[in-house]
């Protein structure tokens, strides 16, 4: 498999996963705000924080109003990670490798991109938002299912999965980091609305129901953190993503360096007693994980992707 094709597949999957995750956090936040009294509600700023685009946002907008933030995350063309931009980047990556993915996949990603940009106004209006975002999430999951069920499970497939799991692990750490910062500043008594906010952290990853089935305890900080970081059976937990990244890496050639990085990452996740961490410690822990994920990406790119372009394409 060509290195360039591997890179296109990897980014294709990352962008689709990014769009899906963004759609999910916007949905959950909108719901959460309906349940919380004004003074308690964290508002919309944390969402921008999660996507790591605070600086860019503040260049464009003065305040974190719902309208501004939702537009920024869904369809602002100045924001590279907005849903519409992410899907457009996914589509561009797919266009050059149409011979690798099933034909239906190309048609569906093309359709999804048209849907996201064509129906954007519905997504921005409060009344249409829920349906718009739900359809986005479903269609993204449909794409993953289509690949799983119809694509040759070869090297190319592994790069799709690597992209998807790294993006997912990264997002999970960000959600945990930002959302917990506004909660339980110091391990004191539960305040009245903390519980509902921890539930929404879980819901941001569609993890609430599975948490209930798996943990069978009240929704509290410690078990929630353990679930989203360390559970080995939940497919959006950091631990699960790392495990499956390792399985994918094991099927690729020249994987020694990448496997070392992923091993280090797994030890970081396993070696921490999450319930006992202060908010500051948790933040440091997340930082360490994110650096590890970035290292892993660098190692993957260095080993299997083409060297970066030095000149702009002529003609």
């Amino acid at each position, binding site marked *: 498999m*060509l290195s360039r094709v591997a890179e296109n597949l990897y980014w294709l999957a990352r962008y689709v996963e990014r769009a899906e995750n963004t759609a999910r956090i916007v949905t959950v936040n909108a719901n959460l705000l309906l349940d919380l009294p004004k003074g308690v509600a964290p508002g919309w700023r944390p969402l921008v924080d999660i996507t790591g685009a605070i600086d860019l946002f503040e260049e464009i907008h003065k305040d974190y109003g719902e309208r501004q933030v939702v537009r920024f995350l869904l369809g602002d063309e100045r924001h590279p990670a907005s849903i519409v931009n992410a899907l457009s980047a996914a589509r561009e990556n797919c266009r050059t490798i149409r011979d690798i993915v099933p034909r239906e996949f190309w048609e569906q990603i093309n359709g999804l991109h048209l849907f996201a940009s064509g129906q954007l106004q519905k997504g921005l209006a409060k009344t249409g938002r829920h349906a718009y975002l739900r359809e986005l999430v479903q269609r993204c999951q449909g794409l993953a299912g289509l690949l799983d069920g119809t694509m040759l499970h070869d090297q190319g497939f592994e790069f799709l999965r690597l992209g998807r799991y790294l993006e997912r692990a990264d997002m999970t750490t960000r959600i945990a980091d930002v959302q917990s910062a506004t909660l339980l500043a110091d391990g004191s008594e539960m305040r009245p609305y903390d519980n509902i906010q921890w539930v929404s952290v879980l819901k941001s990853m569609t993890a609430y129901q599975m948490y209930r089935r798996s943990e069978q305890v009240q929704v509290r900080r410690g078990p929630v953190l353990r679930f989203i970081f360390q559970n080995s059976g939940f497919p959006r937990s950091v631990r699960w993503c790392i495990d499956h990244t390792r399985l994918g890496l094991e099927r*690729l050639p020249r994987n020694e360096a990448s496997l070392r990085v992923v091993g280090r990452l797994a030890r970081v996740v396993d070696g921490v007693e999450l319930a006992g961490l202060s908010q500051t410690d948790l933040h440091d822990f997340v930082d360490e994980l994110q650096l590890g994920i970035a290292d892993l990406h660098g190692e993957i790119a260095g080993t299997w992707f083409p060297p970066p372009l030095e000149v702009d394409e*002529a003609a």
Partner: protein
Amino acid sequence: MSEQSTWAEYACEGLYDELMQAQGQPRPASEALASEIDALGPEELAARQLAAEASIKEMGITFTVYSEEGGMIDRSWPFDVVPRVIPEPEWQQVEAGLKQRVQALNLFIDDLYHDQRIVADKVFPKDVLTKSANFRPQCLGVDPPLGTWAHICGSDLIRDKDGTIYVLEDNLRVPSGVSYMLENRLVTKRVLPELFEQYAPLPVDDYPSQLFDTLAALSPRPADYPEVVVLTPGIYNSAYFEHSYLAQQMGAELVEGRDLFVDDDDCCYMRTVDGPSRVDVIYRRVDDLFLDPEAFRPDSALGVPGLMRAWKAGNVAIANAPGAGVADDKVVYAFVPEIIKYYLDAEPIIPNVPTYRCMDPESLDYVLEHIAELVVKPANESGGYGMLVGPASTQAERNKFKQLVKADPRNYIAQPTLTLSTVPTVIKGAALEPRHVDLRPFILSADRQQVTMGGLTRVALRKGSLVVNSSQGGGSKDTWIVPEIPPAQTQVLSQGQSQSQAQA
């Protein structure tokens, strides 16, 4: 045929029509086709035309047009459902003529890059060679595998009023269109399946495997399974659809310049997930000048630094070979009859269109005087750009061209304006009308020569127009080579599906 026939009003008087020999009277090979179309009736035929267009959109058969604003548009491939029919015996003649032509051209190119005997013998003027825009001094003395330079040639054929078929030009650089020839047949099968009950046009779809065999025959490592790649300039190229189509059909990698590199061992490699992987044959769809920034344009990012080095060392084959375009020049074209005579000691089987070389003073005078009747073409343009069609031109355009020709006679040829033959074509809101066509067959040359069964028929969709290029409002048609006598219908007894779930 009855008076209500579709064909009764088909006005082809004064034209050579490929399907009809006179109003209401089909040629022998087209009789069954004409009556099938008649049986469908104009409304049903129009419905099939729409179905074909819908099919093409759905299958994503596109080509890219460069707009004047500098942007690019991906357009659906324009197609007309009425096929063009050529009887097999006539085609066999054409096929022999094309093989002869390409064989001579290959000998000519090889000679130009070695001893230049044809120049020394004063058959081909030295001046033409010196001024050739596509002669590459970098290729002097190189011996490409099998001595072949032009492995894939697309020659444009036209038929004049009197029925004579001429070669209009030879495309030896990166000729395109073959994927559309293949897709046109698929679309016809889909939307007009009943035609195939009467006819068994010879199949076209073995082209990709023939192309692969041609390329594989050039491999410097013949013992192994050769690694063949298609080199594309990328998704913004007008023929990108074809590049990816052919790569898929051949099972070859579709690569861009940055996927390849030449190592210190002068071998060419592609960057793969498993590390560098040796490349044996490059089917390049990138022009010479962009192939290798070390040898040609240093600013090219489309090519592969060192590729010429690897090619000269014989470690990688390139098709068409760099420099093959020297014979893809409208002035060289004018010499092809002499070239055939010189190398093969034979008369051309298919004639050239009579051509005035403006470099000859007498011809130049004639051309300047009769410019209003002639088609004037520059030596190195393609796609129908930069030419003058005398009868359709304005005085100002003619004056401009006179100046251009006088300033650089070597760069121009002129030909009489031929009335291209026509094929019935579905016109929106009207019955069938004749439209002018040409034909581009593709000739493959390596250890042996093969010609596509027919080729790509291009049709000028505007009434009276002679410009068939898809970038300028041209469309296309399926092309059928049909055996003289339709084969007897064979009965195939098929068994019903025998296994099914037992019903409780």
